[in-house]
């Protein structure tokens, strides 16, 4: 099979699927192409799209490929879809989610120890929106649930995989001694 045909097939597959299509699935459908070659073909397609200023490109997200529209076109698409607001996530839920993402698998008690507040509500929101899920139980007294992130999380945050999370920043709080003595007085 020549490259042009393979590219056309990839394009057709991505056009049809509404979920990110894993590289493995593409490879199954194109037995003549190695995974590495498919990667290259996707890159070529993206270069072609960019070159001819297409309205979409292929995004690698949540362990798969997906055709998405250009960022610059968001206002029009948004209006057409009549989505009133970009279903935002509350600050509380984001903090809980951040802890789950970087510390997974982790328990509710561990998250609460970091955030210093009860997280029942924000955890429920995350489970309901399928950004987090129960991944198991911790082998400690009470066998509490362990929480982790989902592919839905990766998809909504535009991450290829969990390794693509931004690096944890260095703490910026300095001179803790001064702060501490102030707090005591």
């Amino acid at each position: 099979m020549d490259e042009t045909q393979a590219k056309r097939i990839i394009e057709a597959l991505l056009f049809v699927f509404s979920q990110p299509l894993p590289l493995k699935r593409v490879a199954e459908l194109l037995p003549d192409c190695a995974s590495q070659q498919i990667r290259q073909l996707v890159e070529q397609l993206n270069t072609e799209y960019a070159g001819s200023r297409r309205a979409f490109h292929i995004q690698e997200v949540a362990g798969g490929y997906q055709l998405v529209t250009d960022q610059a076109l968001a206002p029009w698409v948004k209006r057409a879809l009549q989505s009133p607001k970009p279903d935002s996530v509350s600050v509380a839920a984001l903090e809980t989610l951040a802890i789950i993402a970087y510390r997974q698998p982790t328990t509710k008690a561990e998250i609460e120890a970091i955030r210093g507040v009860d997280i029942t509500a924000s955890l429920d929101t995350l489970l309901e929106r399928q950004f987090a899920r129960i991944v198991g139980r911790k082998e400690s007294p009470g066998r509490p649930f362990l929480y982790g992130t989902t592919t839905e999380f990766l998809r909504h945050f535009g991450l290829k995989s969990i390794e693509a999370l931004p690096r944890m920043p260095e703490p910026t709080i300095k001179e803790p001694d001064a702060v501490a003595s102030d707090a005591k007085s």
Partner: protein
Amino acid sequence: MKYEVDADLYEGSLSLLVELTKLGLIDVFLIKLVDLTKQYLLQVKAEGVDLNQLAEPLPLLGMLIALKARGLLPQPTASAEDEEVPISLEELERRLREYEQFKTVAQLLAELHALQHQHFGRQPGDTPAAEPAAPSQTPLDVSLADLMSAFGKVLSKASAPVYEVRSEPWTVEMKVQELRVLLTVKHQVRFLELFTPEKSKLELVVIFLALLELMRQRVARAIQEHMFSDILITT
């Protein structure tokens, strides 16, 4: 949401104000809580506000009130509190730094989320042909939460009236046995078939417990052929 405070003494985000107050850098007695409350109430009454975002400043405002209340109490209470929380300063610093890190990444995640929502993929639902074809080969795993919600629906439909229970008419052991037999004979049975609405709530609950027990023993498995299809119980 950035909740801004505009008072004589301080202007800026509410969370910073609370942090500063907690650390004793701002005297809580100089902050007029009445004004803050009024400002907040104005926002509540404003139109088109997101309720979720509206709730966010509440714990912070509550914290301020708690701080002020604590300041009003006589000294002994404060020492009693110290005994309650024997956390070392180092530990406190460590926690503060840890929390601050997570606050920063939470902000990053918010940006990623906003950015990703500028890209639109194909809308789910308009490609019916693509969806069922792919997953049918590998049945989806049904989580405990899915089972619970499916069972919730069944339970709400249970129509048999409630009677006084004399003895234990159904036991989990009995139902486990029944289900085992059923699964041996039929190999696969629809989740909803197990729970006919004529049965009483108690019996339905016992069957559900028996089902969970069988799944725990790995005798039964819950699967879906494709998304949104009926849950199947299989061996």
